[in-house]
């Protein structure tokens, strides 16, 4: 059984603002029955003040989907459009005292509906199609129709680092799983630059030997090997003697004429840049 907070239970058992507004000023349909959850949001908006004066929802889904929808309406009633635009899925989850990781997509669905309803009100082109419901961008996850834009958004707003987390937040990758490498690329694109700057800044203080070996290993794992594997090759750290790093080449790198060039130009340069500028790299055969 899920470990739901009392707030989730309360908003599930006694949801607020259910139903639909007749002749709404803004509305949005997100999710669909195939996915297992869907939300129909209708808003009343004051033309002069741009305030959301009323909001109602209808939701098909589990307890956390219903609770997230209920909280969404509570959060936005009385807010201006500009204020409402700032609401993130995290705000919805926080209001509920948190959601289980696997259920975070319910809060994302609420935020998405709000965003779409506002866009529709402001006169932007919005596809209200049930199956390809996520606004712009390229579809990455074909099982659940999730775009690269939505994935990038949840990664950024919730500081996600793995494909599993992305599945929990927006379902992408949860069907056949074929798009997982693409999701990982998006994570790297969104998070990678930050991580490289922070985690891979060359250390100011002198390192202990173990710290240094660990850093070399991490650098090889994260910065070097993925590129070599993309070309069918590979690399393993064998030993570190002072500033001499001994590695073994794998896969198509073995016996490749340009391997020595790769070692000096790519591996050594990267390690010098991120670990210690005295490092030399040698191949062990």
């Amino acid at each position, binding site marked *: 059984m899920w470990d739901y907070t009392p707030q989730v239970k309360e908003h599930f*058992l006694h949801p607020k603002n259910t139903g639909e507004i007749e002749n709404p000023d803004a509305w949005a*349909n997100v999710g669909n029955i195939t996915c*297992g959850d869907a*939300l129909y949001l209708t808003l009343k908006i004051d033309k002069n003040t741009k305030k959301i004066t009323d909001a109602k929802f209808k939701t*098909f889904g589990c*307890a956390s989907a*219903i609770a997230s929808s209920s909280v969404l309406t509570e959060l936005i009633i009385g807010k201006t459009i500009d204020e409402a635009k700032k609401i993130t899925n995290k705000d919805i989850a926080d209001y509920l005292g948190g959601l*289980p990781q*696997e259920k975070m997509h319910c809060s994302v669905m609420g935020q998405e509906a709000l965003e779409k309803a506002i866009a529709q009100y402001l006169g932007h082109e919005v596809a209200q199609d049930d199956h390809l419901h996520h606004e712009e961008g390229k579809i990455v996850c074909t099982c659940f129709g999730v775009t690269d834009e939505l994935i990038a958004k949840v990664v950024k707003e919730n500081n996600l680092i793995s494909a599993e987390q992305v599945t929990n937040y927006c379902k992408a990758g*949860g069907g056949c799983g074929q798009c997982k490498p693409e999701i990982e690329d998006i994570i790297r694109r969104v998070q990678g630059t930050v991580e490289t700057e922070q985690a891979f800044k060359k250390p100011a203080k002198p390192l202990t030997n173990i710290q240094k070996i660990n850093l070399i290993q991490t650098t090889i794992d994260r910065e070097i090997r993925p590129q070599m594997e993309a070309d069918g090759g590979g690399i393993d750290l064998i030993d570190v003697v002072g500033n001499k790093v001994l590695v073994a080449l794998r896969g198509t790198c073995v016996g490749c004429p340009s391997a020595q060039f790769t070692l000096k130009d790519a591996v050594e340069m990267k390690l010098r840049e991120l670990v210690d500028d005295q490092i030399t790299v040698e191949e062990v055969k």
Partner: protein
Amino acid sequence: MNPIYFDNNATTKVDPYILEKMIPYFCEKYGNPSSMHEFGGKVKRDIDYARQQVAEILNAHPKEIIFTSCGTESDNTAIVAALECYPEKKHVVTTKVEHSAIMNMCNYLSKKGYSITYLPVDHEGMINLDQLRDSITDKTAIVSVMWANNETGVVYPIEKIAQIVKERGAVFHTDAVQTVGKIPVDMDKIPVDMLSLSGHKLHAPKGVGALYIRRGTRFKPYLLGGHQESGRRGGTENVASIVGLGYACVLAQQYMKEENTSVKYLRDKLENTILSTVPNSILNGHKTSRLPNTTNISFEFVEGESILLMMNEYGVCASSGSACTSGSIEPSHVLRAMGVPFTAAHGSIRFSLSRYNNEAEVDKVIEILPPIIENLRQLSPFWRKENMIGA
């Protein structure tokens, strides 16, 4: 609030009589059955007595029974043993509706270079016997088809299936975890080579199971270790639970008639009333070839977890094939294999009864369920009057 426990396919209450039989094995008769002294030797005899009790419910010989830790271990053991014994055969036949203990083992094997045939099922959950016959080749090491499905209760024609598999010369295993204790199982009549059962589905405790291995069936142990279970399963025996399983089999035989009369009556009353009072409720699975205690009903346009949690407020325990309950995002593989549409698969509820249930409990569920479904439908954006069957 006393729970109304309609989730007996998930697990069952340990019968107090069985618990009483188990207690001495913790602080009094705690000897190791493998020991040389009489203190342990006595315990060995008690295990063999339990073996005889288990053999009786299957109409088998005690030597054909090994004790395991659970149904999953029995299932895994059967498949791996057959593949180990026939290394030249790299093919396994099973169905799309098996328990994860079989399914995930087969998925694993397919990554290891084995080829797996997953037989499809029709909308009632039945497999096609001609298709089964055609799928077995001289490269097929083992065929594994469950006796009864845990989610829908659909009972497969195991006698015919076993005959087909034996004609084609492969090993036949059946996962009878949901079957033993609910309907008669006779190994003397049905040419099954290996059969899995689990204690906690028939009022014995969790953590004990058994594997029936017909005499003459080639076998290699899965769990390597000591010489326990005649060298067929290493590991010191879970004595108390094995003793419990033995008595559970004795009781199950005594209550078999009740299971197929009074438990079935309660199930039928629950099922028929729900189907007739709740609009757009659909039975999943074969109407007649079914376990007497199980019903699986879909409520269109609402989601299963929500139904379960609403029922939970009244202390009613059941299960759902919805995606949300498992943490996965795909609904039940069994219902999907049967072609149940998403509109219904997400809203499926399984009620599974036992001899501990009574009519007042059934009446309570019949009373609370229709308004729950109605409330959730009022909340559902997919629920429209025109969707109503018969509207």
